[in-house]
C-alpha cells in the first residue's frame, strides 16, 4: 500500500487509501477454527487474569447517577475481596484497565479513582448515534478531557460514512483527535450499522489513518454488537497498518461479551493475529459490564475446583 503522509494540514485524500476486500466465507471459517482451540488450565488462569486487566468496566445508561458511578469505581478497585469464606480468591487479581462513563460523570469517576492506576474513559461526540454538529461534538470531547478523562471513546458519523462522504468521517476523527490532546482516542465504528465486513475494514483503515489510538467495534446500544468475525477483520486491519506504518493501534471489542469463555476466544484470536506484543491492556480492551463477574466466577472455579454461584459475588 502506497501512502504519502503529506505535511500537516495538507488534506489527506481518502480516495488514495486502498482497502483490500474481505473474504467473508474465509473469515467465518478462520473464526470457527479459532474458537475450537483447547486451552489448558494454567493457560486458562493466565488468560482469565489478563482478561480482567483488559476490562473497561462500563456503565452507559440514561439512569446513571454519581452514586452508581462511585459504586462502579469501588468495584474497579476491589474486584473481589471474598467476604464469604468459601469464595475467597486464592489467586492474585489484577485491577481492571479503566472505568468508562458518560462525560457528565467523568469528574465523579476521576475523584473516586485518584491514586490508582485505573484510567477514566469517557464516551463523547454525541454517543451513541453521533448525529450532532461537529461543534457540539468538539464541546462534548473538550469537556470530558477538561474533567480529567484519560481516554475518549468517540463514535464515527455512520450516516456520512455510509452515504460515501468518507472525507467528512476522516476529517471528523482527525479533528476530535486534536481536541483530545494527550488523552487516548478510541474510535467506535458501530459495526452493527455498517452492514458488511468490507465496510468494517474500510472504516478501520480510515480511523487508523485519521489518528485513532484504538479502534472499537460498538457502542453496545446496537445489535449485533461485537462479534468474533468483525473483530478478526479489525485485527487484520491493525496488522496491515502496523506493517505499513510501524504504528501499533489498539483494539477494543465492546458489547455482548459477558462470558469468560468468549473472552478467552477473543484472546486466542488476538494472539494468533497480532502476536504477544498486543496481549496487554495498553493495546487490547474489552468493553463490558458483566464480564468481570463471570471471569471471577471462573477463576474461583479454577482455584477451588467447585462450580461457583453468583450469590457470592457482587451484583454489578
Amino acid at each position, binding site marked *: 500500500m502506497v501512502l504519502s503522509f503529506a505535511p500537516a494540514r495538507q488534506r489527506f485524500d481518502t480516495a488514495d487509501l486502498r482497502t483490500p476486500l474481505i473474504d467473508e466465507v474465509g473469515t467465518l471459517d478462520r473464526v470457527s477454527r479459532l474458537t475450537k482451540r483447547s486451552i489448558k488450565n494454567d493457560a486458562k488462569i493466565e488468560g482469565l487474569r489478563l482478561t480482567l486487566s483488559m476490562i473497561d468496566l462500563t456503565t452507559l445508561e440514561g439512569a446513571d447517577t454519581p452514586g452508581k458511578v462511585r459504586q462502579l469505581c469501588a468495584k474497579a478497585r476491589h474486584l473481589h475481596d471474598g467476604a464469604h469464606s*468459601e469464595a475467597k480468591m486464592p489467586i492474585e487479581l489484577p485491577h481492571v484497565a479503566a472505568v468508562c462513563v458518560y462525560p457528565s460523570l467523568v469528574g465523579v469517576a476521576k475523584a473516586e479513582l485518584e491514586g490508582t492506576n485505573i484510567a477514566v474513559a469517557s464516551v463523547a461526540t454525541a454517543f451513541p448515534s453521533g448525529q450532532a454538529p461537529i461543534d457540539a461534538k468538539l464541546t462534548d470531547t473538550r469537556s470530558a478531557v477538561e474533567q480529567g478523562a484519560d481516554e475518549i471513546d468517540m463514535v464515527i458519523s455512520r450516516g456520512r460514512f455510509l452515504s460515501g462522504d468518507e472525507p467528512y468521517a476522516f476529517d471528523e476523527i482527525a479533528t476530535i483527535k486534536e481536541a483530545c490532546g494527550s488523552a487516548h482516542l478510541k474510535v467506535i465504528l458501530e459495526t452493527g450499522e455498517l452492514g458488511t465486513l468490507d465496510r468494517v475494514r474500510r472504516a478501520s483503515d480510515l480511523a487508523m489513518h485519521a489518528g485513532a489510538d484504538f479502534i472499537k467495534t460498538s457502542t453496545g446500544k446496537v445489535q449485533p454488537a461485537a462479534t468474533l468475525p468483525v473483530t478478526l477483520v479489525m485485527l487484520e486491519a491493525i496488522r496491515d497498518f502496523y506493517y505499513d506504518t510501524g504504528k501499533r493501534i489498539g483494539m477494543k471489542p465492546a458489547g455482548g461479551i459477558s462470558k469468560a469463555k468468549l473472552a478467552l476466544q477473543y484472546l486466542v484470536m488476538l494472539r494468533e493475529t497480532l502476536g504477544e506484543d498486543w496481549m496487554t491492556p495498553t493495546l487490547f480492551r474489552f468493553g463490558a459490564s458483566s464480564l468481570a463477574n463471570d471471569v471471577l466466577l471462573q477463576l474461583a472455579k479454577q482455584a477451588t*475446583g*467447585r*462450580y*461457583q*454461584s*453468583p*450469590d*457470592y459475588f457482587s451484583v454489578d
Partner: protein
Amino acid sequence: MSTDSTQSSSLEQPSVADGAEPETQRLGVLKTYKLFVGGKFPRTESGRYDPLAAPSGDLIANVSRGSRKDFREAVVAARAAQSGWAGRSAYNRGQILYRIAEVLEGRKAQFREELELCGLSSEDASSEVAHAIDTWVHYAGWCDKFQQLFSTVNPVASSHFNFTLLEPTGVVAIVAAEEGGLAGLTAALAPAIASGNTCIALASERFPLSAITFGEVLHTSDVPAGVVNLLTGRRSELIEHIASHLDVNAVVSYDPDPDRRKRLQEEAVHNVKRVILREPGHGPSPYAILDTTEAKTTWHPIGT
C-alpha cells in the same frame, strides 16, 4: 422410537410372494438417547455413550453418559428458569403439571414398551405408568393448595401480625431412584417443581430410557425450558459434582449407597445445601413438597 430388533422384525416380516426373492430382514433402528437440558435435547458434551442391554443381553439403545460439564450446563439452565417458574401463579403451575399427566396418558404405550424392554413384566410396566400419571395429577392439585396447608399465622407477644409463608428453595438436584425408572423420577420431580423449584434430575442407571422419553413429554406439555433438566450417566462419577456445585440449593437423593450418601453430605457443606435423603416407595404426599421449600416469616406492625 426405540424398539428391540427382534420385535420389530417380527412386526415387519415382509410378505413373501410365491417365487419371490429370499426375504430380507429389516434391521431395527436403535435410538441414541440424548440429554434434556434447557428445553433442548443435546448430546453429551463428553461424547461418551453407555450401551444399555436388555435382561436377555440384547442391545436396546445407547444412552448418553453425562459429564460434569453437562451437569454444569443443566444448572445454568435451571437457574435461568427458576425465577420465572416461581413467578407463575400457583394455579398456572397446577395447570402445567396436569398437562404433563395428560400428555403422558397419550403416550402410555411407548413408556410401557420401554419399561418392558428393560425387563419389567407387562403388568408391572402398566401399573408403573399408571402410577406415574396419577402422581402428576396428585401434585397438580397440590400446587395451589399446599401453601394454605403449611403456611401459618403465628401468635406473638407484640403488636405484630406475624405470618410464615413457603418459598421454593431454588435449584434442586435430584438423584432418582434406581428402581422404577418412570415412577421413581416422577415421585422426585413432581413435588419439587410444584412449589416453583427448578430441577436437574439424574435418571436411574438401569431404567434410563423412560427418563429421556419423559423429556419428550415435558417438551410438549407447556413446561418452560429449563424447569426440568434430565441427565443420564453414572452416579459414582457425578455425585461429587452435584454435591459441590455452589449454585445448587438442595439435593434430593434416592441413592441408597452409603459411601455416596456420605460424600454427598460432606461436599454439600460448602454452600450449606439442603440434603434430603429419601427411601424409594413412598406414595405421593404434600409433605414431599415441604422438603424443598423455605419458610419466610414476616413481622407486620399493627396499630393498637
